[in-house]
């Protein structure tokens, strides 16, 4: 039973992305096995599972980041608004423009705060200073970082704290106006206060964006996500509303993981 079908009566969900029969190979190793998943628009989808289960591999296949990894290969279809992003005439650069990514470790460029935020708009051809200023302010406000940095936009981004750097990276993604934001354990390198700021931010973002987030913390998945998908050893085991997954998992393996049997 599809989560979209089961939920549509209650909250009128539309499908943003659809993954069908996806396999990911690293050389001859099959890291993801025939995964199927519908990702609803403007909701938070959490991907959970033990280390090495393939959740990050799955996430990176959603905006063709595997194109950059030698030896990695993706088969099956991944659609964005009905178009296969792996289609022959699709430009991977455009795919990554529409589907942004926030990484595990904050990775601001060694440039000023301002230049970090406007990097995306600049490479997509925006050169008007006033427009860039506007995008910078809007993105930093959306990422709840504006008040902390508005007086030092020209300072190096590397002088910010880890939590601020990660919010800057989120602002940098927001600046290119993506439709989907992929997050690969965005808070795992941060302290608890910075983590809770990121979590609050994700709650705000889902009003305008579709968010898919990999997390190793089940508590985090429970706090921030609407839907949860459980991976184990390259299998997409189960998907459902977050409350269902955590209270009434259908699969024995999901239950074992939720109750702490895989550690």
């Amino acid at each position, binding site marked *: 039973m599809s989560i979209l079908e089961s939920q549509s009566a209650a909250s009128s969900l539309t499908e943003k992305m659809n993954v069908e029969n996806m396999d990911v190979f690293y050389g001859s190793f099959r890291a993801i096995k025939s995964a199927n998943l519908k990702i609803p628009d403007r909701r938070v989808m959490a991907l959970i599972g033990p280390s090495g289960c393939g959740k990050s591999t799955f996430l990176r296949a959603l905006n063709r980041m595997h194109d950059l990894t030698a030896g990695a290969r993706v088969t099956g279809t991944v659609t964005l608004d009905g178009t296969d992003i792996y289609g022959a005439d699709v430009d991977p650069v455009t795919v*990554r*423009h529409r589907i942004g990514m926030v990484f595990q470790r904050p990775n601001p460029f*060694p440039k000023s705060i301002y230049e970090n935020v406007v990097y995306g708009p600049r490479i997509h051809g925006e050169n008007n200073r006033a427009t860039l200023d506007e995008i910078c302010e809007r993105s930093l406000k959306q990422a709840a970082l504006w008040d902390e940095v508005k007086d030092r936009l020209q300072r190096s981004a590397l002088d910010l704290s880890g939590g601020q750097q990660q919010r800057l990276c989120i602002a940098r993604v927001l600046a290119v106006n993506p439709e989907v934001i992929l997050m690969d354990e965005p808070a795992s390198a941060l302290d608890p206060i910075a983590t809770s700021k990121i979590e609050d931010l994700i709650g705000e973002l889902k009003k305008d964006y579709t968010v898919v987030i990999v997390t190793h913390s089940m508590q985090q998945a429970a706090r921030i996500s609407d839907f949860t998908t459980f991976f184990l050893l390259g299998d997409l085991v189960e998907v459902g509303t977050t409350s269902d997954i955590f209270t009434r998992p259908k699969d024995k393996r999901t239950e074992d993981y939720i109750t702490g049997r895989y550690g």
Partner: protein
Amino acid sequence: MAEAIVSTVASRGRLSSDRARSRRALDRFMTGVLWTAASSIVLLLLVFIGYEFVQGWSEISWHFLTGYPSASDAGGGIGPEIFNSFYILFLTLIFTVPISIGAGVYLQEYAGSGRFRDLVQFSAESLATVPSIVMGLFGLLIFVQTFHWHFTAIGGALTLTLLNLPALMRVTQEALGSVSDTFREASMGLGATKWQTVVKVILPSAIGPLTTGIVLVSGRIFGETAALVFTAGASVSYGKSAYDFNPFHTAETLAVHLWSTHREALVPDADQIANGSALVLLVMVLIFNIVARVVGRQLTIRLTGKS
């Protein structure tokens, strides 16, 4: 079982023993040996510089540094030679920098791992092992004899380009390799193309080590002799002025002048001129090394905001 563990812990826990004392003595002795090896490098440099200064200082004068060399009388200067050294360095960098950075960027960012990459790498390494005198004879054959350019600044510069391409390509590869992959991912993740990523993120991040590498290679070009004797020639231009910007005129550099003065010794003060030239050459190359460090660090701070 438990007793055995306790006794092991007890014997390990004794805070002084003969064995421990002798181990510590050896440790201290070896630290001293290694320190001596390291400091001998500093000492050698100081002795060498000191010797050159003692030998050459008395020769240095404004006339010596700017005057024309003399064919037979005493009192010749090295002005045109200093000019030629910089001029040939400049010409060489014009050819070397774009090609070696281009090749280095291709190998590091585009090539992945494949046959062509291995071929370029192997060619560069082979080129790097060619002795400079052999490269000089090759330059003689091509530029001087086949092209009929005779001894020219440009022939010398092209020969030096062949000689220094591999080193600068290596420098580029290492500089780019030092840039974290997370920057590449971040940039591509924002929808940048590979070229945009290279130009806007990778090269600016690598500018410090890149500049340091270029200046260090410049020092080597500045001091190169064997490759230039048969290509740029061992005499200064006899055109309108010995300070000659025409790249198709002969151009003896300071290093070549040092060698030729010693070899031919036609002037009575050949030894003094050689000592003075050696000192100037040494100081110039030292300046290159210091500039390399300072500029590299400043550029890194300026462009990345981090020391």
